[in-house]
């Protein structure tokens, strides 16, 4: 083990403290972001899972069905029925695994009868009798008439068990006001109801109430309680409602309704905010294990839940988004590592003298390596510790994995480069005097370089093919995710290959130009552009930056476009199909602030067929004139072909069709209300909504002229007043979708917003890296430049020309690198965004169209300005050396 010389380690560090701090800073910045990625992406995943569980609603609940013990012998009125029920619910809750129990709310216990047919007046009236209670108490209600259901026995006997001989046994129930209204029942009504097996029960209405808190989730356990279901059919109207039983009348319910009609359930709804991404697998397993533990009708408790499939589906979406995120992170990491290598290179250049001296004095390569390693590791550790600390302070949690490459490169790049420099300096190999031998040696170097470049190109091609074939499906497939980064590297290498010959060409031209500046600039540039690293850094970071910006912009734009496609204007009203909707649409179109409105019938899953093909289409029957106006007024693409729908010829109804086979266009016909209607395809339909099925558009007038009726049920409106105008005509019927709201919903969805945030953060960091890259590259060559400029000054170059030479030397490669990077970045985005399946995040049905904002070009400006500033600063510094001193002794630095 070599011994370290502490004084030289410290002294060396002290002399280059600025650069070391810079390296530390880069490490810190990179660690800051990479260590935050894991906790933030986990948090985003948590939010996404929580949102999915929330959206799932009751589907995400865990339901225990409890078997009621059967007592043989005579029926008994059991006054402790409610307490016993609560006891059983409690024991069911205790059966749940801890992990699951902690993410669900305390159970809501229900004991319900099936929907029973009321026998008092007319068919089609159904009533369910639930007893329901929260974990502690029954939901609060206010009686607006009558009183709460009371025991069916005198108060004195209410507390003791009574053997029952007389049947039927009536049960008192209380109706919510909505149900009482829907069923036309009043306090004191006594009626019979029968179940599916025609077994009857006698029911007495004791009171009518309104719920204390209709949003209490207890009510969700029996949805028809507060929201009676009213169904219309041609023959009759049916009403399904529910009435509650209290703990006082529960014993009567158990007697009034046949034993096997009553089902006891405990519904544990999930607490979305407590469901964590990291737990999904464990939770899924716990749920499946519960479900598998017992079958219904056997054992005490059987379990049901769809939460496991909700979690699995949600997990799949999260992992797709993580795959997209890994594309950005890999790009960022590559940028950071390149910058670190560049900084290390600068450091080694500055130390070259002392390193060579050390080696010449007999220091071993291992000694040099380890001495420098100590320094580099300390810097890297301090930098990353600071980064991690900041992450921890800001985010509250830290992820390690992505930071490791930064740490490794920061620790090894400097020592490795320095050791190589030292080794080369003290290499005792003779340079062959023979020209052909020298050429051979050069060829070997070229072959080596070709080999490396070939490998990079091959890897880039393979990763791109992998991306095309596999797509980005999860966060574990680094091969496909790294394709954009490899493409950037290839672009950088290409630049490095092409620039020197180009520069030599320019130099040849510059020789013929009068004036020293172009010649000097061209001469220097033709030498300096051969240095791979600075160009590579600028090009690669700009490519990544462009990709990241384009990704964010494409997603944002895609979300807006998807929302617009879904809504079909500024607002959309969907309601039951009715003739009156036509008039409503007309009134909306004349409302203030509405530019256009159209009413349409939109039906999905309609079968159409031609002579040799058939398809399921989305049928849109619309007033084509109004729809054309809507399309013209909205940012959706116009469809002048809609006017062709109004030309009626040859007895067939003209239609527009989008998608479907080519064969579908011949002899198309549709069956509408059981009658075939021949159609003629006259053009390509515009996309309506976000369906993936073919779209068929028919003009309403033409359709009706062919004998069909299709009353509209959808109204699109465009204009700033669309929202209020639709709300005014809708009067709470149907649903209204607003463009602004849908867009906001999509943008604020956890996965989408998380990804856009990551893209923004990484583009910020990448621009910092790019600027740093320019500065470091300039600094690396600064001494050589100063020397040559000194010579030129002593030869008579004036201050202005010095500045121009510097500008030319510094700005040219940066400009070239940045512009090429920009072009490559756009190209990479164009080629790679398809397989990235961004539509999963934007919520569109097809790949979003690429959007590259114009201000991406600002990157180039920023970099060029940086180079200009550096040039000015360097010019000032060069100018500070007195000419006399230069003339006498050259540059003394």
């Amino acid at each position: 083990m070599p011994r370290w010389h502490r004084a030289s380690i410290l002294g060396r560090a002290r002399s280059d403290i600025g650069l070391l701090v810079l390296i530390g800073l880069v490490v810190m910045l990179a660690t800051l972001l990479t260590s935050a990625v894991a906790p933030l992406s986990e948090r985003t995943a948590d939010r996404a899972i929580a949102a999915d569980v929330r959206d799932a609603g009751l589907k995400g609940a865990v339901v225990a069905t409890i078997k009621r013990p059967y007592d043989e012998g005579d029926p008994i009125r059991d006054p402790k029925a409610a307490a016993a029920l609560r006891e059983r619910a409690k024991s069911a809750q205790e059966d749940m695994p801890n992990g699951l129990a902690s993410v669900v709310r305390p159970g809501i216990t229900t004991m319900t009868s099936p929907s029973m047919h009321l026998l008092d007046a007319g068919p089609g009236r159904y009533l369910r009798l639930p007893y329901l209670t929260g974990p502690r108490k029954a939901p609060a209600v206010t009686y607006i008439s009558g009183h709460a259901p009371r025991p069916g026995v005198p108060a004195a006997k209410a507390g003791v068990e009574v053997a029952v001989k007389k049947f039927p046994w009536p049960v008192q129930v209380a109706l919510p006001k909505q149900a009482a209204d829907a069923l036309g029942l009043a306090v004191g009504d006594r009626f019979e109801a029968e179940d599916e097996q025609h077994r009857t029960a006698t029911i007495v209405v004791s009171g009518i109430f309104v719920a204390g808190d209709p949003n209490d989730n207890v009510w969700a356990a029996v949805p028809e309680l507060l929201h009676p279901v009213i169904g219309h059919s041609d023959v009759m109207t049916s009403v399904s409602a529910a009435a509650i039983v209290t703990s006082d009348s529960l014993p009567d319910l158990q007697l009034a309704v046949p034993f096997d009609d009553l089902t006891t359930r405990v519904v544990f709804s999930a607490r979305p905010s407590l469901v964590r991404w990291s737990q999904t697998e464990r939770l899924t397993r716990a749920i499946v294990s519960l479900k598998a533990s017992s079958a219904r009708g056997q054992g005490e408790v059987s379990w049901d839940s769809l939460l496991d499939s909700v979690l699995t589906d949600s997990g799949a979406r999260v992992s797709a988004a993580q795959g997209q995120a890994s594309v950005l992170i890999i790009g960022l990491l590559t940028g950071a590592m390149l910058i670190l290598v560049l900084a290390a290179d600068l450091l080694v250049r500055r130390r070259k003298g002392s390193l060579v001296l050390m080696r010449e004095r007999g220091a071993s390569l291992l000694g040099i390596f380890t001495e420098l390693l100590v320094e580099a590791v300390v810097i890297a550790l301090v930098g990353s510790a600071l980064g991690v600390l900041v992450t921890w302070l800001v985010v509250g949690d830290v992820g390690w994995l992505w930071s490791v490459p930064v740490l490794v490169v920061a620790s090894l790049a400097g020592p490795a480069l320095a050791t190589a420099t030292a080794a080369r300096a003290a290499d005792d190999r003779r340079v062959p005097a023979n020209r052909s031998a020298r050429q051979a040696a050069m060829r070997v170097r070229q072959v080596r370089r070709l080999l490396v470049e070939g490998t990079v190109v091959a890897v880039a091609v393979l990763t791109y093919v992998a991306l095309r074939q596999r797509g980005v499906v999860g966060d574990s497939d680094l091969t496909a995710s790294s394709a954009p980064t490899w493409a950037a590297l290839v672009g950088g290498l290409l630049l490095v290959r092409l620039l020197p010959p180009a520069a030599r060409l320019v130099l040849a031209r510059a020789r013929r130009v009068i004036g020293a500046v172009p010649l000097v600039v061209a001469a220097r540039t033709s030498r300096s552009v051969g240095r791979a690293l600075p160009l590579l850094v600028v090009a690669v970071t700009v490519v990544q930056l462009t990709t990241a910006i384009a990704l964010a912009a494409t997603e944002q734009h895609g979300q807006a476009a998807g929302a617009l496609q879904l809504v079909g204007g500024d607002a959309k009203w969907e309601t039951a199909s009715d003739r009156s909707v036509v008039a409503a649409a007309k009134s909306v179109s004349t409302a203030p602030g509405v530019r256009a409105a159209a009413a349409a019938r939109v039906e999905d899953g309609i079968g159409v067929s031609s002579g040799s093909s058939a398809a399921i289409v989305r049928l849109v029957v619309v007033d084509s004139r109004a729809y054309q106006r809507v399309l013209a007024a909205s940012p959706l693409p116009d469809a002048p072909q809609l006017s062709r729908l109004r030309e009626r010829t040859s007895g067939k109804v003209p239609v527009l069709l989008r998608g479907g086979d080519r064969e579908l266009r011949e002899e198309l016909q549709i069956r509408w209300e059981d009658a075939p209607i021949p159609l003629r395809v006259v053009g390509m339909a515009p996309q309506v909504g976000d369906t993936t099925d073919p779209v068929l558009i028919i003009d309403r007038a033409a359709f009706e002229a062919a004998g069909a009726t299709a009353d509209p049920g959808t109204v699109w409106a465009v204009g700033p007043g669309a929202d209020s105008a639709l709300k005014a005509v809708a009067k709470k019927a149907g649903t209204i979708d607003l463009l602004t709201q849908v867009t906001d919903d999509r943008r604020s969805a956890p996965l989408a917003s998380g990804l856009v945030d990551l893209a923004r953060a990484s583009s910020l960091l990448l621009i910092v890296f790019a600027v740093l890259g320019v500065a470091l590259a300039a600094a690396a060559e600064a001494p050589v430049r100063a020397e040559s400029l000194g010579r030129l000054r002593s030869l008579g170059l004036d201050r202005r020309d010095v500045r121009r030479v510097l500008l030319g030397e510094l700005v040219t490669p940066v400009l070239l690198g940045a512009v090429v990077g920009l072009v490559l970045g756009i190209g990479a985005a164009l080629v790679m965004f398809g397989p990235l399946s961004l539509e999963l995040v934007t919520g569109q049905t097809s790949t979003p169209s690429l959007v590259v904002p114009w201000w991406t070009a600002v990157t180039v400006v920023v970099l060029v300005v940086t180079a200009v500033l550096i040039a000015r600063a360097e010019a000032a510094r060069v100018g500070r050396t007195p000419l006399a001193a230069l003339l006498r002794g050259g540059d003394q630095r």
Partner: protein
Amino acid sequence: MLTLVLRRTLAQGRLLVGVVALVTLGTALLGVGALLIGPTQDRAFTAGMQETSAQETEVTAFFGGLKASDEAGVHDAAHTVIRDALGALRPTFTSNATSRMRRLGDGQRLGYLASTTSLPKRAALTSGRWAAAAGEAVIPEATASRLHLRLGDRITLGREIGVDPVQDPVTLVVAGTFRATSRSGWERDPLAGSGYSAAYSDGSLPRLSPAYGPFVVDEATFLASGSTIDALQVTGRPRLDRATDGSMNAAAKAMRSADGLLSDRVADRVDISRVASDLPQTLSQVHAQQAATRSTLLVVLLLSTVMALTALLLAGRLLGGVRASERALLADLGLGRGQLAVATLIEVLLIAGVATLLAVPTAAFAHSAVTHLPAMAAAGLSQGPTVTLGLVLTEVASAILLALALAVPMVGSARPGPRVARVARSGVGVLVGVIAIAAWWQLHSQPPTATTDDATLILAPVICVVAVTVAAVRLAPLLLGVVARVATRSTALVLPLATSQAARRPYAGAALVLLAMSAASATFGLAVQATWERSQHDQAATRVGTDLAFALSTPATDREAAEIVRSTAGLTTSAVVDRPLALGQYVGSGDADSAPVLVAADSRRAGALLRGRLDHGRTWSDIGDLLAPGPALVGVPLSSGGVTAKGTAPRGVQVEVVPTLLVQDASGFRRSVTGGAVPLDGRPHPLRQLGSLKGAHLVATKLAFSGGAASGTADVTVALTVRNAEAAAGTAKKSPQEWKVQILGAPDTPVAGSSTELRSSASATTLRTTAQLDLGYLAYADGEVLATGFSRPTAVPVAVSERLADVVGTKLGGGITATVEGVPVPLEIVAIVPTVPSAPGGVAVLADADTLSRSLIAAGHLEPVVDAWWVADPTPGTVRTLDKLDLGETTTRAEVAAQLERGPLRAMVPAALVLLVVAASLLLHGGAALVVGADRPARSAEVARLRALGLTRREVTRLVLIEHGILLALLVLAGALVGVVASVALGSSLVRSDVGVAPVPAAVLVWPWSLEVAVVAGALAGCLLIATVITLVVVRRSGPAQLRAADA
């Protein structure tokens, strides 16, 4: 220039012949690959399609509820739609029509008409003849015997049942009787081809009625009857003998719109219409298999191409070396670089041309030979020598490519000195290492889902093998140095001289890589093939689960069970339950393979019966022991004397009992038989209609009480008496059994309490069951009591698959609940196995069939639950006999393995691997000949010098031989080592299942020692032989003349 080239060609003829041979070899290899991927894959597609079963490709249009008058039109519409959809596959059609049920006479009895074009295929005539004239019908035997119909009898089918019935009766003459021969053909018959059902209901009838039929008539009669057609199916079976990828794709695409098209055409005339076909799924499965095979083929081709390229680089290098002095001379004469390059190009193109001319027929014959390999021939893929345009294009392109590879080193001049080379290598080593690891990681981290045709994964093994070889070869000079240093200690002359010379001489990298890689490819190819074959056998074992699985199309009756037992006499067999089940409320998470499956077999024979790999050195007997059902069940022996039931009830109580006996025959098969209703009148009633019970045992009985009208309760007793057979009398007495009783359907049952006891006397055994009945309730519902000769298992012990343990998150000793036949069965997990036989990779449980059956019986489910019979070590005769029974399908492990290994879509994989081994050996020997042979001019001078120094001819021969031998042996051994490393790293991940997913069970590397040793030894021997021959030639030709020439 041309003259120069031609003259030079003549002068260096022998070397050039070698080069041409090498190019031809490489080109022909690629040509064989092109033919395999092209015409052979197409042929395999057609052959693979033909191997699919009819159900997998046929297209069926179903119609429901149409009038007879519309039949012809609907029929035509179906024909047109199916024919259009299948296009070039020109389908043949069959159709089946069944009428709605009609009344037979005045009673409850029902009968129905049918008209079918495929009857002779699905049924065998047992008497009379097929219906030929109007008004004639053929009927099932069961129908004839139950309706007492004889040939020539007339029968009238009355009006239809249901809404809007047809009233006109139909009178038919019985022309013949038949018996259904295959169950699969009768799946859609209302009576499933049985000819009779005592309790038929289509939902429109108020009660269950006896039904008979079908009365199969010709189409004219059928239509003339004017019957409402309940079901009409028109099936188009495509002709697959000329199925091509294009025609099948077109058909699959047309399937998508066929349903809509048909329903549109017949919308007015039928209630329901649907087009169904498995063709698209079948096609995509065949495509997946093709892709899986193609990816292996591509790996082999790529490896061969890399080797061929290396060989040509080497040849070019040697040729360049031979011409170095000539080139210098030409350059001195003033020939420019461009002119030299043109000359080389012309020469190379000439070589390419000659090679193409030779390679086209070579490839055609070699391809024909490959397709005549036993495996390929068995799969029907044999082809004569064919020359296709694709082949010619491939040959031309590859010949030019390979010849250009030849040109690269020929043009290049200076050789990098060893020191410069070292610098160049320093970084390359790291690069090669990184590439090898990256390639390995690609393969290693591939997802278990289908990844065939993934370019990265196809390239990865090739890159990995090349990189590892390059890395290994870089160590060769070091090793030679070590050998030389060791050998210098010897005092002998020849050995140190030879070794130090071997270590000192510079070697062309291409030569080292070629020799090592050929050896590596050969060993690697063999190992992959062995691994692949073993994996196919493992997969087959897991898929079938046993040696022979006989899956029944419907649950077996006792007679069928007896037939099966008779057919498999003397073999280890077991009745097996193999069906999906619900685990509690869990029925899977949506994926096809996550639906739980239950497999129950005879655990006592598990060791002999079950197949599939287990972990931790366990055997299936060990697992079977954990599942064992305990002592065998011995019930009450039944004799030919029959069973007598005597019931007593209080006076005035009108109650009947229907006893159902669960009997177990000698083979352990359990079935239930139901006697008629017996009034509880205190008199003994012999039970009728029990059939033959000889040799059977009574293990349980269910008593169903009905009747009663008054209120109140009554205690009733039913005694079932079995007259002892003489032989069995003794045993019954010796073991008085404890019988248990339980009330079924509690709490909703009129039975309030019950008890049972078994008494044996010398002549008879009596099972006396007492029940307390609620007479008022009994009027509404039957009361059932079950008495069993065993106690209900508390839980069925099961072994679960790892996947189940993973999905459900359960552990050993854990409990889950399964629902089988609607009966909840508690399961206790006693073992976790990698995968349950016959349910590869699925969520599955393995139980003992006996325990399961006891559990089901105790829950009141007395019907037999048997889905299949499994047989260990069957003879070919067994399979034939079972097939003849026509009760279901037989699947044997050997058949499945053969299908996986040598099916038309698969046979190319082993053939390709054999091709790799052959190509590698050829290239190895060619390479060795090049390396040794090219050295000859330099060596002959050296030999002459050594001879001049006084070495004997023999010593010189030994010297040269050792020198070559060391190098060749070292490279071959290094290559073999690389083969080992590559096999260990990649062997198992290269094996994918037939549809391109990770195989179940996972492939395990097989290293075929004997074959590998033989191949390596053969390679060594071949190389040494070549070296010997060339050495002998060199030594013989060396003489004083050479000495002078060398000096000059």
